């Protein structure tokens, strides 16, 4: 039965070539936009090396201090993480990294803009960077405030040509660092690992950051498993409540929550820093709503085209109805035909998507972008195609199934 429906669907599509082409063009274009958007989001939120423990990592991004009239939101201070977030039950490792900062190097009489992160030694264990040469800095360098640096492959080419860079000197913001390691480029969209140059947090000019509650640092908590998340979060929050705020008379409370990248981003976008709950679904809801809004126009367009296409076959429907085919089977048949069409469009867009993604990578709009289709985005594309097919096929099918057989046989459907 299904096979005969499929054969019929393909035969019908072949009969009206212009209509099929117009429909396919619209479907493929629509799905292409959504697949590219999906690939971008996947690249921001999905698990890619060096974030190999993505599924059991909690992040502390922002800290909000609030009082009656005052409120201050900013990345966590080093002190807040170093003094209050160590040895949480269920946490294997705590890594601390600064947010990325623009820095400049005037090495060799040229000015080079680069992004700098200051990290601790655990950063290199929680995140697994593929090293081209050398090794990360460890506790010895961090504790002594050594001026050493790990750089990415592009920076090595910029400063030292294609040869090895180990042991060479690199000047950044007036300080000279010795290169200890070179890693592969990380896309800028991966906010947690990304930088051009990583140096020990202690290697700067001043050491006053060590006791800050708010500042420019993020915490990465590597849990034993995702099942430990609730326990870690409640213990972390209760520690936050015990922090002495007497040095800040204008503030009464301090809020910070370790959570997943998606949940943290949702919190930042909705400015809900004092919400005790993690609500990643709010952000997903916004993405879904935007996708639906975008789908509205293509759906109406496809519905119009499908109705025109199906109305031609009124007499066929009349015959089938006259021979007693139930409405549900007719609806099923036409929805299936539509899904076959959108799946074809989906395949077309999946063929075109790698080209568009490669063009975005090449354009340099997103530094070091490595956008590519993977299994997740591929599945997303096919899922969207089916969803779009059912969405745009349901109404025309329902209209047709309701045609009176006599009217349908005469082919006088309006």
């Amino acid at each position, binding site marked *: 039965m299904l096979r005969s429906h499929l054969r019929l669907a393909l035969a019908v599509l072949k009969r009206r070539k212009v209509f099929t082409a117009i429909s396919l063009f619209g479907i493929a274009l629509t799905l292409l936009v959504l697949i590219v958007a999906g690939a971008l989001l996947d690249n921001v939120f999905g698990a890619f090396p060096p974030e190999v423990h993505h599924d059991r990592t909690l992040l502390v991004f922002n800290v909000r201090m609030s009082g009656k009239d005052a409120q201050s939101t900013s990345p966590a201070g080093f002190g807040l993480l170093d003094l209050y977030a160590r040895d949480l039950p269920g946490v294997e490792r705590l890594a601390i990294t600064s947010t990325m900062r623009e820095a400049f190097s005037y090495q060799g009489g040229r000015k080079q803009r680069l992004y700098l992160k200051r990290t601790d030694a655990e950063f290199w264990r929680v995140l697994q960077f593929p090293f081209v040469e050398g090794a990360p800095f460890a506790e010895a360098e961090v504790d002594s405030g050594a001026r050493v640096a790990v750089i990415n492959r592009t920076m090595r080419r910029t400063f030292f040509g294609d040869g090895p860079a180990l042991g060479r000197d690199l000047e950044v913001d007036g300080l000279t660092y010795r290169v200890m390691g070179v890693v592969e480029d990380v896309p800028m969209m991966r906010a947690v690992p990304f930088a051009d140059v990583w140096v020990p947090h202690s290697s700067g000019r001043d050491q006053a950051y060590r006791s800050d509650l708010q500042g420019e640092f993020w915490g990465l908590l590597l849990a034993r498993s995702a099942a430990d998340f609730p326990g870690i979060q409640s213990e972390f929050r209760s520690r936050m409540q015990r922090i002495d705020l007497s040095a800040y008379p204008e503030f009464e409370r301090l809020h910070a929550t370790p959570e997943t990248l998606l949940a943290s981003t949702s919190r930042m976008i909705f400015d809900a820093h004092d919400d005790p709950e993690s609500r990643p679904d709010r952000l997903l809801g916004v993405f879904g709503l935007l996708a639906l809004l975008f789908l509205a126009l293509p759906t109406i367009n496809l519905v119009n085209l499908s109705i025109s296409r199906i109305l031609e076959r009124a007499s066929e429907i009349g015959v089938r109805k006259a021979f007693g085919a139930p409405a549900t089977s007719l609806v099923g048949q036409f929805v299936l035909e539509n899904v076959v069409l959108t799946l074809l469009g989906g395949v077309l867009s999946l063929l075109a998507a790698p080209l568009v993604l490669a063009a975005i990578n090449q354009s340099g709009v997103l530094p070091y972008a490595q956008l590519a289709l993977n299994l997740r985005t591929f599945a997303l594309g096919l899922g969207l195609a089916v969803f779009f097919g059912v969405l745009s096929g349901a109404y025309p099918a329902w*209209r047709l199934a309701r045609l009176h057989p006599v009217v349908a046989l005469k082919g006088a459907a*309006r």
Partner: protein
Amino acid sequence: MIFHLLRLVWHRKRQSALLLAELFASFLVLFAVVLGGVVAGDNWRRPLGFEWEDVWFVGVRASSGDRPDEGLAGRDLVALREAVREFPEVRSAAYVDPAPYQHSQWMDGGRIAGRRVMWRMARADDGLPAVLGLKLVAGRWFSREDDPAGTTPMVVSESFARHVFGTTDVVGRDATSEQEREDAAPPAKRRIVGVIADFRQDGELMGPEHYAFQRAEPASGEMRRLPRVLLVRVAPGSGVALEERLLRRLERERPGYTFQIEPLAQMRSSRNATGLIPLATGGVVGLFLMVMVALGLSGVLWQNVTQRTREIGLRRAHGAAAADVFRQVLAEVALLVTLAVAAGALLVVQIPLQDLVTGIRPGAFAASLALTVFGLYGLALASAAYPARLAASLEPAEALRYE
């Protein structure tokens, strides 16, 4: 004629409703894209109120303290400014915060002289007009005359003056908001000392916003918040070599500070790129959607015409010319577009009427509306042209026989 067409459209109300929905959605998409483009173009051609060529941004940060401006001492800022002015290539140097093209804004607002006003604000020292080429319209810029404490001197933009006082002749007027009068202790007092041509801190893409400068001269003693950006006007053609020498000199002058130098020209291009990328993406996606709609419409109309072959044949047999049939098909489409445009326009005029989005000038809004209406008629009629020709070319005798 119109009523007759309306009856024809009503006769096929289900299909017409769907076409109407498609045209309505297209109107909204097209309007959003056109509005974005028109507003950006409109902003782009207006004067900036300052000159960015050959001006460099020098960010000044004290190395300690958890908020960036804590620990900045007025003495140090004066010394740094003097050190920069010693360079022969440096024409002038002055503090301002936030600087043009910086991703940072300071908003203020309140009720002044009975008028509600929101404005963007910056703190600036006494030498800023020379660096940025600010144009004074009335009064004067800040100077030592303003040293005595008690009142905060302000220089406001023309649009600020016009909005609040209805004139640019506002030098000497009191610009204290009612809120400040009641809450602050001791009562704050702001006095306008000058008026400048409209200043657009965010650059070419910034919409119409009121602006005001407040005096923050580090040499004039204590103040709560010091400016963190030194703007330097250099000789044309100065390059990286001077940048590095400036940087080393500043680091030597005050080793506890960190500095960041960037030409305003660079900040300008990255700021404008950030503003234009969403517009360009929206434009490309919008264009694809419109192509899709045009193809879809002509497909549906083609089908529609084929279905009505006998009706058209009958008209021809009654003596209607081919041109009449052609016109009829186009007129029916135009009627649908008119309905969709009316509904869409009714919806989008709520934006200015309800004050939903600020920063759109009435002229730009009207131009976008007109362009969208024009564009949608063009799109729909162009898609209808081929089906209409097909209908007009039918042979009456064959059309009547068509099954």
